[in-house]
């Protein structure tokens, strides 16, 4: 399983902020600051980080819903950012997205059948009859009944809507699905149903996932590899076990200790690192390592130089961290 499906190299994306007279550009938000990773086929890369760390921008940039400022991404030998529109359309057959909010991401004026069938129409797959059969089959795969086809999204609960969103992403049998917080809007009992469904689909169709979330317990459960992002940088990326058992970056460490654990007995015994202050603004990121103002290990060096993502273990396993004091 050493088959690389997607490589991102040094992705950078900034968003302009306009203001003042003549609506000039007055500042830039640095959403992605040189993100690189590669992803193996059939595996799941979990991307975690706090709000504003660039994890959603990463997902959308990889799908070329945003054009990056610089950097590249190669998906199955195709350079994502230099494709012509018709080739891009083809590429999107293989890359699909599941969105966070199942209320906002489904068109309330379309029936479930036409929502799931829309990607098939756009890509002109099969005849009308074929498409209809396909939509029915996909609906069954995500565990919904055929009667749902002629109903509208508002008639369904959050969990069922998320199933519809997944069905739409599945319609083209994509190779890669980017799931942006697919379960964070759902209740816990529904959340586990959706997670199970996604894992089952991966096993059945060999789908590769980029699973963006802020809930570390969910990411640990779903992922094979995990990337931790902070202010547009990947600060640590590793095999799941390595990351959760031997976190090397101080940010990963504090993130892990900040999660409330559902075991009251551990309440007092657990060592906790509580970070001071807030995430700095991505408009004026701090110099040097972006984490240094909140870091409990920061030294003079961290204030001036930006650490690069470097191998920790040296035993061949994936575990890279960007820190001078690991």
């Amino acid at each position, binding site marked *: 399983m050493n088959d690389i499906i997607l490589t991102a190299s040094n992705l950078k994306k900034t968003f302009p902020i306009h203001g003042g007279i003549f609506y000039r550009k007055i500042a830039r938000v640095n959403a992605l600051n040189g993100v690189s990773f590669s992803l193996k086929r059939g595996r799941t890369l979990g991307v975690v980080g706090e709000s504003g760390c660039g994890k959603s921008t990463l997902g959308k940039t990889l799908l070329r819903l945003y054009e990056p400022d610089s950097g590249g991404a190669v998906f199955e030998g195709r350079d994502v950012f230099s494709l012509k529109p018709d080739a891009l359309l083809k590429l999107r057959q293989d890359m699909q997205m599941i969105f966070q909010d199942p209320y906002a991401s489904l068109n309330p004026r379309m029936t479930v059948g036409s929502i799931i069938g829309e990607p098939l129409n756009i890509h002109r797959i099969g005849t009308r009859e074929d498409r209809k059969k396909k939509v029915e089959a996909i609906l069954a795969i995500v565990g919904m009944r055929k009667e749902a086809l002629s109903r509208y999204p508002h008639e369904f609960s959050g969990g069922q809507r998320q199933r519809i969103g997944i069905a739409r992403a599945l319609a083209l049998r994509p190779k890669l699905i980017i799931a942006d917080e697919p379960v964070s809007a759902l*209740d816990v*009992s529904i959340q586990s149903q959706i997670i*199970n469904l996604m894992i089952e689909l991966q096993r059945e169709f060999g789908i590769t996932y980029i699973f963006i979330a802020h809930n570390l317990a969910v990411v640990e*459960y779903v992922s094979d590899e995990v990337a931790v992002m902070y202010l547009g940088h990947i600060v640590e990326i590793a095999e799941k076990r390595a990351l959760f058992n031997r976190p090397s970056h101080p940010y990963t460490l504090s993130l*892990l200790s900040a999660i409330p*654990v559902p*075991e009251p007995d551990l*309440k007092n015994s657990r060592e906790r690192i*509580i970070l001071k202050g807030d995430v700095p603004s991505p408009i004026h990121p701090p110099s040097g390592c972006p984490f240094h103002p909140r870091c409990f290990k920061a030294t003079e060096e961290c204030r001036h130089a930006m650490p690069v993502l470097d191998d920790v273990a040296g035993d061949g396993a994936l575990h890279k961290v960007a820190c001078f004091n690991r």
Partner: protein
Amino acid sequence: MTIMQQQEPAIPNSHSAECNAIKHEGFHVWRHAPDSTRADTVQKLIPKREEKHCLVLQVRNLKVEFTIEGRRLTAVSGTSFDVKAGRTTGLVGESGCGKSASAFAVMRLIPTPPGEITGGEILFKGRDLLKIPIEEMRLVRGKEIAMIFQEPMTALNPVYTIEHQMAEVYRLHCKYPMDEIRERSVKMLERVGIPEPQGRLKDYPHQLSGGQRQRVMIAMALSLSPCLLIADEPTTALDVTIQAQILELMCRLKEEGGMATVLITHDLGVVAETCDDVVVMYAGEILETASVYEIFKHPLHPYTKGLMDCIPRMGRTREGPLSTIEGMVPDLFNPPQGCRFADRCFKCQALCRQTEPELKTVVGSDKRQVACWFPLE
């Protein structure tokens, strides 16, 4: 401002036996000196440590209904629970289970119409809040019972400065002079850990980060040292590292003040870390109440067990699929006969579908209650 200690009669009309014990105890009285004529409006009772287990709030058979498009929806159907001084009681459940509706009912903030409190009693220090006139209720809100909301950006008014909004609670309840209000506001902001509080007073809510806004909300809520704090999902909109800061702050303030807290959340991790007592709600009803240790170690209701099982836990290897609770929450417009969880329950039997189980104290336990015909062993 001076802090004086003085013998005061205990809470009036206290029906609770537990409260009787402290009738002879002293209270700390905060008094705005030297103007003693204003003292009555200004004085603030802070319960002492000894009263830790005094009941601050007793909700009895509370019923909240909403009328939507001519149809009646029972959001809370006859819930009863107690909140003790110095303890944090967690109201846990999924969306639509009635946990927020219960809390809003305590503050009498249910929007009417469409909502209406159609029955029950809310005894706050022995006094039924549902029976007092609304003017009197306004004196209770903010002063004796305070509330913090989920989304601090929508709870703060964007067109007023932090100072203006913090001063409001003092203006309404105490009539302090301006400079004293400012002094107290600065002290409160300091207490909740906001750096440079002097400068922050002139800021508008949008100039603060999410975590800082929530700190301001907490500072406002605690300004008059309320006996009861209701926190409706206070950390749900925050990032984990900020959540950890806020939870630590709330725990610290609880230790300092001895006030009772009702924490509404759906996050079992937050419950485990902050609560002392837990009330599990489902479809408008209470299914189980217990101490936090008991409920996590040994849940009695199949729903509680199901909730605990379906959250992925850190540091465990993936062994098969996550367990789930099949099906969906029942339609509250037409609640099923019998137990409301019956359709999703793995222990469901014919009896469950016919008769609704009552919330009963568990035999052999101190205070645990469960509403189930066939509780787990």
